């Protein structure tokens, strides 16, 4: 499970997260909603350990272990996964090479032997079938020339293969049409598990119609300013963030 404690972070010297506290229990799906500039994507990057995002206070833990001082790869190996809002294109590196390196790096960190090429393809095929993806996507360079939907499905494929304890989904719905959104949501729902926690970061409520969260939190000006059940998302859809933004300011 994921525990975020009074997290403060700055980007280029500017305070973005100002004391964010949140706990996502094992097997739970929580959503974070908030207006533009509230710090949603900053939260995602801070958790994943991206350069340029400086934590100035607080802590966060996965399964009781603080990951704050770890390099991004070590955080991933500790069970944290970030599904990117904008998955990065990597020309020249095939999706299969990338996925195999990733899965083997994580296996090594657990003291497990590498998957060989055949074992890997078998695993990837099995996961891809369940996501409605074709083999051809393994051969293509990572995210290069992928449609918006393909990119997001590729993120979910990585999630399925890496089997993290905590998955942070940053604007998984952005850039998707309704059908693509359903496909991705179905895949995410299939990956819900008693020992896996999800934190869905989203701008709009529509994703939460497909992936129904246990809790919804409103992020404004770097803090959680309201929490509730799934109905909170529908309320926001009707009334907007203005009231919450005003309360935060």
């Amino acid at each position: 499970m994921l525990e975020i404690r009074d997290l403060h972070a700055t980007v280029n010297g500017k305070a973005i997260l100002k004391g964010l506290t949140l706990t996502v229990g094992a097997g739970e799906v929580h959503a974070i909603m908030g207006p533009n500039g509230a710090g949603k994507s900053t939260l995602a990057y801070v958790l994943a350990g991206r350069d340029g995002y400086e934590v100035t206070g607080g802590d966060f833990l996965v399964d009781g272990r603080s990951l704050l001082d770890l390099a991004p790869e070590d955080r991933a190996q500790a069970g944290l996964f970030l599904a990117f809002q904008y998955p990065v294109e990597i020309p020249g590196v095939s999706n299969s090479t990338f996925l195999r390196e990733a899965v083997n790096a994580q296996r090594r960190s657990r003291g497990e032997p590498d998957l060989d090429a055949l074992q890997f393809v078998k695993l990837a095929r099995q996961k891809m079938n369940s996501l409605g993806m074709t083999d051809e996507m393994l051969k293509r360079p990572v995210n290069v020339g992928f449609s918006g939907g393909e990119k997001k499905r590729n993120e979910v494929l990585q999630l399925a293969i890496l089997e993290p304890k905590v998955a942070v989904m940053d604007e998984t719905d952005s850039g998707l049409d309704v059908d693509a959104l359903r496909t991705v949501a179905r895949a995410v729902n299939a990956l819900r598990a008693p020992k896996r926690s999800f934190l869905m970061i989203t701008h709009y409520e529509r994703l939460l119609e497909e992936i129904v969260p246990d809790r919804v939190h409103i992020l404004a000006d770097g803090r959680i300013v309201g929490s509730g059940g799934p109905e909170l998302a529908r309320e926001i859809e009707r009334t907007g963030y203005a009231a919450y933004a005003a309360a935060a300011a």
Partner: protein
Amino acid sequence: MLGMEARRDGVLGLSLLAPGFGAGEPAGSSWLSRLKAEAARDFAAQGLPTRRREAWKYTDLKPLAEIAFRAPVTDDSASVRTLADLLDLPPPEGSRLVFVHGRYRPDLSFCDLSETGVSMSPFNAGTGDDKALAARLLGRIATAADQPLVALNTAGMEDGLCIHVCAGVHLQRPIEIVSLGSAASEPLAWHGRTLIVLDDGARATVIERQCAPAEMPAPALVNAVTEIALGAAAQLCHYRQQALGTAGFHINAVAAALGSDAVYEAFTLTTGGGLVRNDTSVTLDAPGAETRLAGAYLVDGTQHLDTTTLIEHRAPRTTCREVFKGVVDGTAEAVFQGRIVVQRDAQGTNANQLSKALLLSDGARVNQKPELEIYADDVKCSHGAAAGQIDREALFYLRSRGVPASVAQRLLIEGFLGDALSQISDETVREAFSRTAFAWLQDR
């Protein structure tokens, strides 16, 4: 000392023509000795090129002039054989011709006698026809009058290799030329010379490897020239691998002349050498001729690598594609000079040039100079030159999946080089060169 005198005269590097250097020695046949003597005069008139010469703007040969190089006298067979073993070359697929310090070594070579329609012989030892071929073509494709290092090579070569593939013959297996240097205790210079002639419709693959131990007690100068003549519809794949020690100066000139619909594919992989100049010039002399030049280089420390290409489109519907990619680390320096000339008659030319360098450190540098000179009006030409660093977004993306930073960086560099390596159409060579490049990355 001679070098000092030479500089006072304003002509660099005359000591390279000193007696005992091959230049003054009888060459055994009158045409060859005439060619050599003429070239010696050409070199004496020009000297080593300085940076004032446009083609050498980014590569300084002055350090060469300050070293008292000697011609290799004898080679110690035992140590050379050990060296060949040390280099751990894969068993030859076809013929393998081994040269040590520019001298052919039949004892280390292997000739594939199952291939017919091909001859491989020193300029002087060939049959009458091949001798005549060498006499007719040598020095005609790579010319000494305007290229001082070709002049120096011609003056200094002891002998060379002529590969001749007869009309319509498709060689099944590659011909491999291995040029070895040993860890000599004094500075040695040698001038390998190769002439490759493919008659009409012939096809061949030639793989050249330049190797020497990574640690060399004294600097070496390898000044090689390869001349290539391709007949109509002939196809040559020419792959070169340079892994000379970092105390080496490696100057390599390739000049190719193509007949109608001929195809010249070349790839150069450079990891070794202190100062390396890869000079390739291709003239597309007849309609439909095509060249694909590509290369990958990986340099670090204080290495200096200069890739210079000149492609001349002289006839209609000629095509060239250039893809060069390099990785520069430490305080190494790379140079890419790519000149494409489209003559007035070369309508329907298609020319495409790409050069990209990845700089891995603050001290790494690259100078790029693409040049298009177009005198025809119906042409498609494009070029792109870029230098950049590792994509930090991509690096973070890989690391966020648990891939350690060093592995992530290696993957990204492999991906970057992949574009160039994929130009190699021979699968075995492509895999071998990829392995060598990736091993360099792994070892850094």
